[in-house]
C-alpha cells in the first residue's frame, strides 16, 4: 500500500459536440495534450490507462496507447456505458492507492453514433436484446427499444408513488439551462422559459424534449497522481476524498429508485436511502451539508431528483419540491450541474460535470464560479459517488 492522498493533477477538455470531421483519436489526443499542458506532467509519466467509452463510439485502450504513444503497465476499460464514469476514476484512484501505477490517465473520448440508439441501425441496438433485458429496462418486443422508455416509466411511477406535481420537474432543466448560458462549451445556448419547456414536444410521456439529454461526443482527460507528485505541478491538486461504486441487484435500476417496479424485481416496498450515511461521506469525513456543488448523472432530468434523495440532500419524494426557486442554480443553496449538465452542456457521460467540479474547486469556472467552492461531489441514481476537495483531509 502506498500512502498519501490521490489528486486530480491535470484536466484537459477537447470539447463537446458531434465532431463530424475529426477522428476519435484526434479528439482523445487533444484532450490528453491539454491535460499534460494543464499540469506540466510529461507523456512518459503516464503508466496507468483507464478508458471509459470504447468501441464502437470511442477507442479501446490498446488503440489509445498505440495511437497516443503511451507506455502503459496497467490498463482497464469497463463496459461502454455512461454510468461507468466514476468507476473509471475510482479504478485509477485504487491503482494509485495500491502503488500499482504512479500517474493514471482517465480518458473519455468518443463521437456520437450516427444512428440514434433505439433504431436497428444503431450500434448499441443489440444490447436491448440481452438475456436479462435491456440495460435501461428496454423491452423491444413492446416497442421499448431505447433508454428513454425506462426513464419515462420510472418517472411516472415516482410521480404517482409520492404524489409529485409533474409540472415541478421542469425546474431541473430550466436551472441547468440557465447555467449553460454561462458556459461557452455548452451545446445549448438558447434561453429557455418555463413556457418553452412546457410547450416542448413529448418524447415518451411523461418526459418532454428538455427532460432528455442532448446527444454529444466528448473529449475529456484527467491525470491523477499521488499528493507528493501533484504538489509540485502547475495546478493546485484537487483531492479525491472518497469513492463508492455502482450498486447493482434485483432492485436497482439505472433510471429510477429501488423498488419503483420499473426494471426491478419488486414494487412498492418502502425505500429508505442511506442518505448522509452513505460510505462516501464517512470516507471523506464530511456531511451532505458540507458539499458546495454537486454533479450528477442527468441522462434524464428526474435522475437529479433521485440523486438528491439517495444522497441525503432532501427527503424521499421531496426532490421536485426541493429544486424549486433556484435552489440548484449557481447562486443557489446547492449548485447542481453548473456546466449545464447533460441536459444542456451535452451528454458527456458525466465527464463534463467532472471537469466542471475540477474547474470550480480550482476557482477557474469564470462566470459560473461558485463562491468559495471547496468540496464538490459527483453522485448518481445508481449509488456511485466521488467526493473531491481542495484539501486532502
Amino acid at each position, binding site marked *: 500500500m502506498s500512502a498519501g492522498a490521490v489528486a486530480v493533477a491535470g484536466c484537459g477538455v477537447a470539447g463537446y459536440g458531434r465532431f463530424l470531421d475529426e477522428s476519435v483519436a484526434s479528439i482523445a489526443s487533444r484532450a490528453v495534450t491539454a491535460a499534460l499542458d494543464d499540469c506540466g506532467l510529461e507523456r512518459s509519466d503516464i503508466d496507468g490507462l483507464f478508458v471509459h467509452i470504447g468501441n464502437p463510439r470511442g477507442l479501446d485502450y490498446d488503440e489509445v496507447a498505440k495511437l497516443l504513444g503511451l507506455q502503459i503497465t496497467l490498463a482497464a476499460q469497463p463496459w461502454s456505458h455512461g454510468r461507468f464514469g466514476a468507476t473509471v476514476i475510482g479504478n485509477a484512484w485504487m491503482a494509485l492507492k495500491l502503488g500499482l501505477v504512479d500517474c493514471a490517465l482517465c480518458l473519455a473520448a468518443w463521437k456520437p453514433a450516427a444512428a440514434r440508439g433505439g433504431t436497428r441501425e444503431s450500434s448499441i441496438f443489440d444490447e436491448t436484446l440481452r438475456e436479462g433485458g435491456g440495460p435501461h429496462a428496454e423491452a423491444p418486443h413492446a416497442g421499448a427499444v431505447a433508454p428513454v422508455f425506462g426513464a419515462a416509466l420510472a418517472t411516472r411511477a415516482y410521480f404517482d408513488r409520492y404524489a409529485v406535481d409533474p409540472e415541478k420537474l421542469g425546474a431541473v432543466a430550466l436551472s441547468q439551462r440557465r447555467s449553460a448560458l454561462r458556459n461557452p462549451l455548452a451545446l445549448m445556448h438558447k434561453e429557455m422559459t418555463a413556457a418553452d419547456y412546457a410547450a416542448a414536444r413529448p*418524447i*415518451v410521456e411523461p418526459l418532454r424534449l428538455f427532460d432528455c439529454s442532448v446527444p454529444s461526443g466528448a473529449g475529456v482527460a484527467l491525470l491523477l497522481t499521488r499528493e507528493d507528485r501533484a504538489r509540485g505541478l502547475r495546478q493546485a491538486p484537487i483531492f479525491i476524498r472518497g469513492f463508492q461504486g455502482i450498486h447493482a441487484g434485483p432492485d436497482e435500476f439505472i433510471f429510477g429508485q429501488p423498488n419503483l*417496479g420499473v426494471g426491478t424485481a419488486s414494487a412498492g416496498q418502502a425505500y429508505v436511502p442511506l442518505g448522509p450515511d452513505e460510505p462516501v461521506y464517512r470516507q471523506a469525513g464530511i456531511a451532505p451539508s458540507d458539499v458546495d456543488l454537486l454533479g450528477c448523472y442527468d441522462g434524464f432530468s428526474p435522475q437529479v431528483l433521485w440523486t438528491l434523495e439517495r444522497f441525503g440532500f432532501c427527503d424521499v419524494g421531496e426532490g421536485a419540491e426541493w429544486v424549486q426557486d433556484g435552489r440548484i442554480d449557481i447562486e443557489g443553496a446547492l449548485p447542481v450541474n453548473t456546466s449545464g449538465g447533460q441536459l444542456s452542456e451535452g451528454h458527456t457521460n458525466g465527464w463534463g460535470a467532472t471537469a466542471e467540479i475540477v474547474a470550480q474547486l480550482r476557482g477557474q469556472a469564470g462566470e459560473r464560479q461558485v463562491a468559495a467552492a471547496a468540496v464538490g461531489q459527483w453522485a448518481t441514481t445508481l449509488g456511485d459517488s466521488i467526493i473531491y476537495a481542495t484539501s486532502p483531509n
Partner: protein
Amino acid sequence: MPPVPTELPTVDWAGPGDPQYLLRPSPDAEPFHAALADNRLILRTCASCSRARYPHAPVCPYCGSPEYVWQEVVTGARLLTWGRCHLGLVPEFPPPYLVACALLDAGPPMIGALLGPGAAEPRPGDRLTVVAQRWPSGVHVAAFVDEGTSRRTNAGSTPSMSGANT
C-alpha cells in the same frame, strides 16, 4: 387457495410488418413463450419462498434460492406506470404507442405493450389482463389489455388487489 388460472386470450399483431427481430429469447425464456402459444402464462416460481419472478432468472431475487418450478399463474395485473411514445424508432411500432409496466397478480412487475380501449387514457391502478400477442412469424409475446372498465366499476377507490401474491 390460490386463484385458478384462466385461459390466456390471444391477440393478433395489429401493427405493420413483423417485429420478430425484436425478440431473442434465451433458452431460459423459451418455455414462457411456448406456454403463451398454448394460452397459458407461466413463470418461474421459487421452490423455497413460493414467489413467482420475472425475468426468468436462475435464482430467486427475493430469497436467493436456485430451486424453482415453472408454474401457471393468473393472468390479471395492475397498472403501475406507462409511457406514451411519440418517436418512430422502429417501423413496426409507429407512434404514438403505449408501453406499460404492470404488477402481475402473480407477484412480479413486467413491462409490455399496452393495448385495449383503456389505453387511450390509462390510470395507475387500472386492472389489466395479460394476453398472448401472436406475431405473424408465429412467435407469442406477453402484452397487456386495459379494457378501461376498472375505473367505472371502482370509481374513486383503489382497484381490487384480490388474487395478488399467490
